[in-house]
C-alpha cells in the first residue's frame, strides 16, 4: 500500500515535470516583444531633421488624429524596403507619419529621403539612439501606432509589409 502511494507521488511529480518541459518546447528561444500595448507617449526634446531646432515631443503630436511613428535609418536595408509602403500610407489623410532618424549620418539620411521621397510630416533626429529607448524600441525599423488620446497602442518590430498596412488601416477606421 505504502509503495503504491510512493509510486503515485513519483508518477504525479514526473508528469508535472514532463508537462512543464513539454510546454517549454513551444516557447521561442529569442525574446518576442508584446505588440499590443497601451503606453503614454514619452516626454523628451529632440532636434528637427529639417530645421535642426530643438522641439518638444508634445508639440509634434498636437492634432487629434492617429499618428504613426516610424524609426528608420539610411544604413538600414529593411528601411529601404518598407519605404514605398510608408509612401503609400502617407497618402491616407486620417493619419500623420512621424519619422525618427536613428543613429544616422545626417547627410546620408537626407540623400535617402531625397532619393526615395518623404512620407513624414515631421522627422526627428535620434543621434545616439536614446530617444528610441524612450519609446521601448529595439532598433530599426520599428513602427508605433499612436491613437487620438496620444497613447501608443501598437508596435511593429521589423519592416512593415502589406499585411501590416492593412492592420494599421483597420485600427484607424
Amino acid at each position, binding site marked *: 500500500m505504502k509503495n503504491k502511494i510512493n509510486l503515485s507521488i513519483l508518477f504525479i511529480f514526473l508528469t508535472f515535470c514532463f508537462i512543464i518541459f513539454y510546454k517549454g518546447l513551444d516557447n521561442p528561444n529569442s525574446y518576442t*516583444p*508584446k505588440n499590443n500595448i497601451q503606453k503614454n507617449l514619452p516626454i523628451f526634446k529632440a532636434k528637427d531633421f529639417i530645421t535642426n531646432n530643438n522641439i518638444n515631443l508634445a508639440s509634434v503630436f498636437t492634432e487629434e488624429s492617429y499618428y504613426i511613428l516610424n524609426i528608420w535609418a539610411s544604413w538600414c536595408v529593411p528601411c529601404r524596403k518598407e519605404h514605398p509602403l510608408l509612401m503609400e500610407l502617407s497618402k491616407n489623410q486620417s493619419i500623420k507619419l512621424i519619422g525618427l532618424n536613428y543613429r544616422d549620418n545626417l547627410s546620408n539620411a537626407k540623400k535617402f529621403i531625397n532619393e526615395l521621397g518623404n512620407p513624414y510630416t515631421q522627422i526627428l533626429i535620434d543621434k545616439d539612439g536614446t530617444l528610441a*529607448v524612450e519609446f521601448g524600441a529595439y532598433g530599426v525599423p520599428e513602427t508605433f501606432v499612436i491613437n487620438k488620446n496620444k497613447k501608443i497602442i501598437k508596435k511593429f518590430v521589423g519592416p512593415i509589409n502589406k499585411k501590416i498596412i492593412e492592420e494599421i488601416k483597420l485600427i484607424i477606421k
Partner: protein
Amino acid sequence: MKTLKIFLIIFLSVNFSQLKSDEINNELKNRILKNIRCLICQGQSVYDSESDFASSIKLIVNKKINNGMSEDQVYKFLREKYGDWVIYDPQLNKNTYILWLLPLLLFLVGGAIISKILIFKK
C-alpha cells in the same frame, strides 16, 4: 604661504570628493548594466555587448544616474519600456511567484521527507 596651503587643501578635497562620487556612479552604472539583458544579443548583458541597442541603453542609464535616479528607479524605467525580461534578476510579482516559491516549497517538502525517514529509522 598660509593662504596657498588653504587653497591647495580646498582644491584637493573638492577634486577628491568629485573623483569619489564619479567612482561610486561608475560602480552603480556597471552593476546596473550587468543586470540588464541585451534584448537583441544571444545571452549577453548590456555591459558585455557592443550592439547599437546596448550602447543606447548604456547612454540612457548613464543619463538617468546623472539625473539622480536610483538603481531601482532605473530598473523600473527599463521594465516599463521592455517588460520584466530586460532585467536578469526577476522581481517577485504575480508572474514570477512560482519561480521564487517553488524551490522553497521543494526544500520544505524534501526536508519533511528526510526528517520523516530519520524518525522512522530511530
